[in-house]
């Protein structure tokens, strides 16, 4: 019997953003279906609904025509669904066979584990997949690739009919990718439904039968891989009506001298990054998740050590050992995760704003001057229109937009004298009105002669705000575009280029 999985009118809203809207499509068994879309298109949300991690949503999930609703991930597993994420769901201290049969150890008398059975059945699986590992190998000692294969075997043992892969090839070598693809094809040939979420064009064209494209939480189209091209796919993923969002933004026409230069900078996460930044320039770092944009920013800010290459700031070589070095030189970073890394949530606006400049709001060297830090905080609230009755309000209680403004207020106060502002996903989780304010502020900063590095997954932001765009993929630079020549399509193409 032919199996099929169908989504009907799936919707999911998070506070402040609608992740999925009216998504409907169907996937048949015996096919490998790619799920493509930019960051924020809704792919991972959809997977989470499928795997049971999100259990309150609109719409229906049907398997073979029967509606299913999963309250917990275990329900999904019981319904023959396996989602293989990038985070391992294995116990690294245990061995292969124990992990594969984690949920269903073959038992014997007195609750004992039947070791012979366990070993035999694991070996059968290993032989079936033709992989070079032993049932008794400790999972923690296997390479990431093999760990992933153990996970695949786990889902196979569960006899899952629906198997989804979320960006599986990132940590794999070419040979390992070959093995993986062979396994995936095997799954398909047995009639299972295989979902393959990936950004890599060459892989999509190599292994998938159909492609489902999503954009901004909606379903766009489903096409047969053989009948489409890369350019067509990219076109379907982009193309938005931006309306008036970017109208009326006064850009900076005169860019100053180069004051930041990276030459072949390599860290633990990115390789061979070279870029320049001028005063008053808005430089965009574009790319998909995991491309290395945040890591580049962290290197400039001194949060991650530079292993090789040079960074030249204001004409001198600069090798920050910690963020403090960068801050002293006027570099500021608004982190991607403002709650986990940016704000001290249980502290007031005032205290958050003054955090990096305690030395400058102090009296007699050791005391924090309430008067001075209040003045700074009041100014920040006023300048950025932070909606709050008082500066002593705890930041945890603010909305996302206001929280972001607090962070901006922190770094752009008079006391800090920021010359280089790095913004990592500044409009994530913020409503439209606040976004517009942020855009205005970015342009204002640029006009004041501050160099801005803007990291954003929203292509429209990058294209409409930046003077230059650097695109990253896989930890290195794949291309550079000037403002005039940048379009959503060519940025995305570069973001997906190997």
């Amino acid at each position, binding site marked *: 019997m032919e199996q099929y999985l169908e989504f009907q009118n799936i919707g999911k809203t998070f506070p402040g953003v609608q992740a999925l809207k009216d998504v409907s499509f169907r996937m048949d068994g015996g096919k490998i279906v790619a799920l493509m879309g930019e960051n924020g298109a809704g792919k991972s949300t959809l997977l989470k609904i499928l795997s049971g991690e999100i259990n309150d949503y609109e719409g229906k999930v049907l398997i073979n025509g029967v509606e299913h609703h999963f309250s917990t991930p275990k329900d999904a597993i019981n319904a023959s669904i396996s989602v293989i994420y990038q985070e391992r769901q294995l116990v690294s201290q245990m061995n292969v066979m124990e992990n594969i049969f984690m949920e269903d150890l073959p038992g014997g008398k007195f609750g004992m584990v039947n070791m012979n059975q366990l070993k035999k059945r694991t070996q059968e699986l290993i032989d079936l997949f033709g992989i070079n590992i032993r049932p008794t190998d400790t999972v923690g000692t296997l390479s990431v690739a093999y760990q992933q294969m153990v996970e695949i075997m786990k889902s196979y043992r569960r006899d899952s009919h629906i198997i989804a892969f979320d960006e599986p090839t990132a940590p794999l070598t070419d040979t390992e990718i070959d093995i993986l693809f062979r396994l995936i094809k095997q799954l398909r040939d047995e009639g299972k439904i295989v979902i393959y979420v990936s950004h890599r064009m060459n892989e999509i064209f190599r292994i998938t039968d159909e492609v489902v494209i999503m954009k901004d939480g909606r379903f766009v189209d489903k096409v047969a891989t053989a009948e489409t091209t890369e350019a067509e796919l990219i076109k379907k993923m982009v193309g938005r009506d931006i309306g008036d969002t970017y109208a009326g933004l006064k850009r900076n026409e005169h860019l100053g001298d180069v004051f930041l230069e990276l030459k072949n900078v390599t860290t633990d996460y990115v390789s061979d990054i070279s870029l320049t930044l001028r005063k008053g320039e808005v430089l965009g770092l574009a790319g998909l998740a995991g491309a290395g944009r945040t890591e580049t920013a962290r290197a400039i800010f001194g949060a991650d050590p530079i292993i090789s290459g040079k960074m030249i700031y204001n004409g001198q070589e600069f090798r920050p050992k910690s963020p403090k070095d960068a801050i002293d030189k006027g570099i500021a970073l608004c982190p991607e995760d403002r709650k986990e890394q940016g704000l001290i949530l249980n502290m007031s606006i005032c205290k958050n704003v003054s955090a990096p400049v305690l030395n400058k709001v102090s009296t007699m060297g050791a005391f924090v001057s309430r008067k001075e830090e209040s003045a700074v905080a009041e100014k920040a609230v006023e300048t950025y229109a932070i909606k709050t009755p008082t500066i002593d309000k705890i930041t945890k*209680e603010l909305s996302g937009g206001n929280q972001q403004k607090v962070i901006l207020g922190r770094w752009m106060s008079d006391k800090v004298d920021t010359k280089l502002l790095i913004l990592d996903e500044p409009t994530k989780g913020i409503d439209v009105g606040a976004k517009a304010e942020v855009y205005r502020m970015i342009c204002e900063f640029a006009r004041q002669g501050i160099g801005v590095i803007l990291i954003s997954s929203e292509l429209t932001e990058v294209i409409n705000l930046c003077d230059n765009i650097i695109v990253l993929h896989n930890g290195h630079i794949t291309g550079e575009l000037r403002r005039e020549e940048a379009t959503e399509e060519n940025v995305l193409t570069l973001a997906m280029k190997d």
Partner: protein
Amino acid sequence: MKKENSILRRVFEHKYFTLVLVLILIFIVFGIITGGIMFNPINIRNILNLTTITAILTCGQACVMITGEIDLSCGAVGTCGGVALGWAVTNWGLPWWVGILFGCVVGLAFGAVNALLVNQFKMESFISGIALYSVAKGLGYTFAGSIGIALTDSVLKTIGSAKIGKAIPVSVIISIAIFIIYGIILSTTKIGRKMFILGGNRTATRLVGLNPTRISYFAFMNCGLCSALAGMMYACRVFNATATGISSEQFIGVECCMLGGIMFGGGSGGMVGAFLGMMIINVFNNGLSLTGVDPYWQVACSGIILVAAMLIDFLNKKRQNKLMIAKMNAER
């Protein structure tokens, strides 16, 4: 009419309201049970007399807890401090102030080791505290022997038992002063602010240009110093630096802090709350002994108080979360 309501409401919702209420209640209840002995000035002096050592320990622990850690080596480090003092003054014949300095150095050293283990070797602070507790305890026993070292220096003897005028012991003044000093440090100085930031969000601490390791060292070393001071004070009071010293005062600091709202996990709380917590525990214990309850019940009560304190902490957090969610929903 409206103004009255708002003042009343502000009093009710004030975070120290419950603590003050509990304190007054305990005082009155025990006062009734003991037939008024509780209120006797001599008894009041007894209550206040107990506070110095606890005060010092509480303040030291408070700083560590605010940074999000805990120091479980206090009791033994304090004992070592007392023993160090005894060695320096009695055995080596050094002047009393050198002895005190020596004890302080010992305390600081232990605090530094604790900080090293937690920051460099990424150990859980409770385990490093416990391990150091054994090390310090062993050291204390080794150098103090079973009978301890008698403190015969006259200055030290007076420190333990000095009074101003006839009624108020010096120790009370010192303990209140200590709370005030630490209260000021925590709420108005840069280092105090930095400790709150570290406890509030360790990642953010680094990303705003602060040095989490240095702040942590400060907190731990301060706690070690406080423990040593408390231990030395105790030794002065009993005229003997014993091997047990203040080891039994292991958790009093933690209890006071938690009762007082210095929540576990750091980042919030204040000395006023810790002070109130300390007074509650002191009055409670004093009441128990006045009513003739077996002194050993107090030790058992210590555990129950700890549970109660954590319960309060847990409920506080729950209530705060609820309040916040309600507020955010209201704003939408």
